[in-house]
């Protein structure tokens, strides 16, 4: 065990720091540009320097660097520290781009990857349907070839960002007589067309980040299909594999825990800082055991990845662990903010710190993570079945 980086990596860290100190924040006239333009300008330079889009070939707009997990981690750490824009985190760069790299045709890669990683086009993901959540492969949205186009009818739901997206990658039933999983194809389509209607869904937080999407004879060219007809399920699993292989990164959790300790120092109980209350100290120290476990488990997975070793069952647990931690922190925070828990996140009592509202927001948001992208209970199924080797549920086995 050696927690230091080797000289080679420390020298790489030095290069990254030097690049950042001269490139971010932008200076002079560039500093006055709108935020998204500043970020795009910076990302272009960071790609040219080899720090972003490292897995994407140069001909598709990436920086095509040799895979190196530790360099990737150093870049994330330093960009995070400098508050510089890192790789775009949306569903396009994180899910579609790796899928296209593995399963897309040459023209698809050339047309879509560059604009996606530069943030010039935004994607949404059309998977869930009202009747197909955890049992996604039962989806019913149909696509048929008419002439040289797919014609799509049906409905998607929980579609994050559909109201701002330029394109959707979408699972549709194209092979009517094929068995459940084999009847699905992976299609790309433009959101800017008359056959598509987007209706926002308002969340319990008050915001509306996701939507229902209705298709009424929506159209997309026949060759906007990734993989062959009927292979959509397998293609979509490629993307999930990339997602699952993502290393548990505890940086956010560690930062949030630091914020929670600060909140406990600031919040008062009977006129004294809450952190002097024995029960608060116990809860925080107990939570820190979990936070540190998650942090070191991330270090260990990073080490394994750097040695090209499989992480084992722990790789399946990261999402549930960070969900559990987010919820526990939110519950403690709600106790600490006291009466401010009666107010909307955006409402501000005279003299109350603005952070109180952010923690109330977190109390609501932390539930979203227990539901989105596979509920916590589905995560437990995955851990039990793939991680521990328990048999599948009898009902799920039959379908």
């Amino acid at each position: 065990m050696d927690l230091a980086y080797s000289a080679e990596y420390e020298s790489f860290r030095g290069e990254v720091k030097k690049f950042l100190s001269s490139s971010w924040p932008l200076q002079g006239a560039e500093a006055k540009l709108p935020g998204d333009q500043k970020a795009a300008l910076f990302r272009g330079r960071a790609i040219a320097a080899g720090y972003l889009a490292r897995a994407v070939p140069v001909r598709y707009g990436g920086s095509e660097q040799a895979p190196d997990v530790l360099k990737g981690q150093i870049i994330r750490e330093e960009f995070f520290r400098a508050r510089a824009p890192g790789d775009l985190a949306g569903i396009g760069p994180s899910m579609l781009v790796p899928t296209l790299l593995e399963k897309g045709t040459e023209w698809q890669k050339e047309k879509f990857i560059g604009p996606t990683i530069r943030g010039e086009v935004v994607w949404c993901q059309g998977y869930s349907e009202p009747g197909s959540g955890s049992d996604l492969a039962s989806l019913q949205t149909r696509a048929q070839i008419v002439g040289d186009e797919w014609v799509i009818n049906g409905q998607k739901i929980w579609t994050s960002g559909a109201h701002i997206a330029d394109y959707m990658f979408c699972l549709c039933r194209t092979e009517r007589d094929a068995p459940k999983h084999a009847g699905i194809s992976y299609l790309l389509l433009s959101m800017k067309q008359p056959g598509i209607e987007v209706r926002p869904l308002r969340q319990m937080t008050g915001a509306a980040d996701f939507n229902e999407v209705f298709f009424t004879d929506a159209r997309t060219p026949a060759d906007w299909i990734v993989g062959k007809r009927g292979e959509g399920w397998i293609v979509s699993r490629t993307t999930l594999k990339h997602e699952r292989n993502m290393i548990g990164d505890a940086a956010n959790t560690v930062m949030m825990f630091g914020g929670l300790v600060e909140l406990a120092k600031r919040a008062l109980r009977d006129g004294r800082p809450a952190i002097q209350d024995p029960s608060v100290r116990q809860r925080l120290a107990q939570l820190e055991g979990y936070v540190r476990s998650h942090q070191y488990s991330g270090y260990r997975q990073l080490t394994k990845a750097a040695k090209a070793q499989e992480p084992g069952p722990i790789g399946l647990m990261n999402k549930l662990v960070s969900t559990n931690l987010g919820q526990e922190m939110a519950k403690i925070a709600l106790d600490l903010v006291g009466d401010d828990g009666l107010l909307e996140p955006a409402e501000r009592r005279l003299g109350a710190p603005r952070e109180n509202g952010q923690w109330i927001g977190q109390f609501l948001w932390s539930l979203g993570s227990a539901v989105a992208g596979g509920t916590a209970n589905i995560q437990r199924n995955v851990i039990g079945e793939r991680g521990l080797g328990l048999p599948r549920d009898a009902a799920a086995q039959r379908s």
Partner: protein
Amino acid sequence: MNFDLTEEQDLLQETVRQFAANECPPGRVRAIFDGDQGHDPALWKGLLELGLGAIAVPDEYGGAGLELLDLALASEVLGAGAVPGPFLGHSLAGLALLYAGSDAQKKSWLPKLASGEAIGTVAFAEGEGRWQPEDWTIAGGATLSGVKAHVPFGAHADLYVVGTRGGGLALVERGARRFEVEPLAGIDRTRRLSELRFADTPCEALPGGPAAAARVRDAGLVLLAADAFGGAARLLEMSVEYAKTRQQFGITIGSFQGLKHQLANMAVEVEPARGLYWYAAHALDHLPAESERSAALAKAHLTQVYMQVARDAVEAHGGIGFTWECDVQIYFKRAMFDRAFLGAPAAHRERAAALAGW
């Protein structure tokens, strides 16, 4: 950046694992658990031959010259096998001599502890949760008077390292004058306990001060955390194995979502926590500024996890899990030992809070 074990460390664990599987299978654990002594000299001799008598003691004193992490890795494997015997107290007595002893004391005792010629143990507890060096009240000097509780294998030890007022440490030898050892009916029959009674008992002080005593305590916290991880991981395996084998309603019970989720929750408690004791063990040798707090958090967290997983494992095994003959109860009681020995989780969480300046 390498947060992982070396090949040598993997090999060390594999060697101890093989030894435990061959020489201390569940049947032998049960026999020792049910026996009068809780200690099997032949088994202990085998462990000493593997070098487990003094892993973290320099080779000039007859030890293996490895680090605390290596010692903790052995503790994990012994915990996984619920291996009975004086490993914990013996290891801590050796570390106490190493951290606090004079050169003459080290030369005189460490080779004997390494070879197994002498069994060592530590006497820290004074009852009512008083385990920490700052809690010790027995006055040091040429003799000791007072009572020490919960001394592991006190009835078998040849050398006792006794905590004294102000964070001091003193050696008492078996057979010393005006010294009584009273065996206690400890809940964990793989790690038997005794009470020690001193009445002007001759002793020999170790020159190291309270910092050395605190370091011995911290090493103990790490060894308990490692034992807890090993035991909890083994209980998870046993519960999963049972869920894959047992059938009801004509199907394997592990396919029922209720049980599957319980097992998944156990896995999520256990698996990520491995690095917590690794880090704390590493910190004791390499990161002095963090070592005390890391050890406190690791002990509090892992022993609480072990206790909860042990409760879950009883439930997962159904009626058989509640019986004396089921191995789960042996782990359950080791979990109770790990949780309480050297102080309960809440005490170490409060220490961690204070050490952070909260």
